[in-house]
């Protein structure tokens, strides 16, 4: 081998080796669960099964019969950019239970004000882009909780989404990859599962205000009776928020005879959002696929 190619080969090998080292540092190697790990799950509160957000999510018994409210519309997508709870400028209100909206620092209040006030209803959900964390947890469709050693998996029927909350003791990543639903790490405080989620992509489908890379969503899951679960959600962001933003508590009901149904949003989606951000409907080919 001549000298040039040999040097190139060496550089390539070093690059691959260093790359592997970096990956190894970022990933937690999970050991095979032992019988004791499976047995330990039985001591946790029983979250298993299918849960539904009831009236708070737009479905359930609260949906009134007839009239406008009895009509169409899957999955809640509480307003992405420019919509949802109006962000408040710093210093206004006390930030109690989310009623006053997130209390933004001056810099982020300016960012919020600079956003175009697009019609909050005209959002990318029409193109089957799901809501993100934490809004994805409040859809008028159920979700299933699964426990395995070191991991809580949430299967969300709306848009067929899956969340992984690692409970194996790993730390929150210092420099997380930006993910649509972030990266979630959980731990138990007594009978409460506390999930912390960081590293959100700049596609704020679950957050209604401008946020920094330091934002963290904290969800506290607990059973208040055998078939009722509450999720308390708080957002902290030392750059964007002057105080933790409490989004309040959501209540879920367990349906022991339900299973998660299919929801492939792209199956027959006649809705769309055009290049100008306006929503429309394709009426072609009635009775078949719209295109």
């Amino acid at each position: 081998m001549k000298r040039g190619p040999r040097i190139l080969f060496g550089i390539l090998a070093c690059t691959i080796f260093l790359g592997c080292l970096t990956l190894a540092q970022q990933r937690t190697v999970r050991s095979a669960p032992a019988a004791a790990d499976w047995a330990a799950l039985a001591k946790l509160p029983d979250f298993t099964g299918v849960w539904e957000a009831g009236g708070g999510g737009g479905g359930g018994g609260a949906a009134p019969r007839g009239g406008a409210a009895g009509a169409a519309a899957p999955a809640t997508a509480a307003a992405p950019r420019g919509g949802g709870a109006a962000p408040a400028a710093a210093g206004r209100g006390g930030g109690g239970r989310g009623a006053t909206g997130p209390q933004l620092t001056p810099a982020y209040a300016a960012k919020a004000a600079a956003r175009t006030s697009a019609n909050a209803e005209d959002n990318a959900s029409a193109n089957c882009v799901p809501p993100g964390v934490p809004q994805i947890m409040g859809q008028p469709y159920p979700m299933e909780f699964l426990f395995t050693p070191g991991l809580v998996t949430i299967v969300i029927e709306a848009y067929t989404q899956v969340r992984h909350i690692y409970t194996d003791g790993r730390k929150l990543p210092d420099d997380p990859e930006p993910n649509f639903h972030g990266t979630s790490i959980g731990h138990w405080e007594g009978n409460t599962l506390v999930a912390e989620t960081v590293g959100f992509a700049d596609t704020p489908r679950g957050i209604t205000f401008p946020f920094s890379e330091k934002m963290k969503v904290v969800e506290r899951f607990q059973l208040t009776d055998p078939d009722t679960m509450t999720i308390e959600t708080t957002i902290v962001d030392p750059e964007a928020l002057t105080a933790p933003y409490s989004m309040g508590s959501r209540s879920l009901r367990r349906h022991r005879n339900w299973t998660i149904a299919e929801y492939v949003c792209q199956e027959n989606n006649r809705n769309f959002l055009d290049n100008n951000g306006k929503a429309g409907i394709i009426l072609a080919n009635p009775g078949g696929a719209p295109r």
Partner: protein
Amino acid sequence: MKELLRSKAGPAAIALCLIVGFVSVALAHHSFSPFNMTESKVLLNATVKKIEWTNPHTWFWFDVPDGKGGTELWGAEGMSPNYLDRRGWSRNRLKLGDKLELTIHPMKNGDKAGMWMTAKRPNGEVLVMGGTITDP
């Protein structure tokens, strides 16, 4: 419930529940902006012609008398199968040829379609997309 209706706060509470229910349903898979949500259009003698029992929405297509001796095709968007299955519906609840008095929020652009509000069969049965969960 009767007590709630009699009390002064009752009607206000019920109205609030309806509004909250509506808002939460209205924040939807997609925008409602294609529909005129303040207008109701009643389609008499609508005959079911085609059914799309699909996600993310069901679609029902009807032959509706055009007033000139013929018919025109109208579409109505409904909730998704998984939502409806838990609320007293199934894919067999409506059959081709069934006749309904159908009320929709019509499209703003004049297209012959709308969002399903409510429907009534000749025997009086009412078909809505929301309602109480029937499967415990």
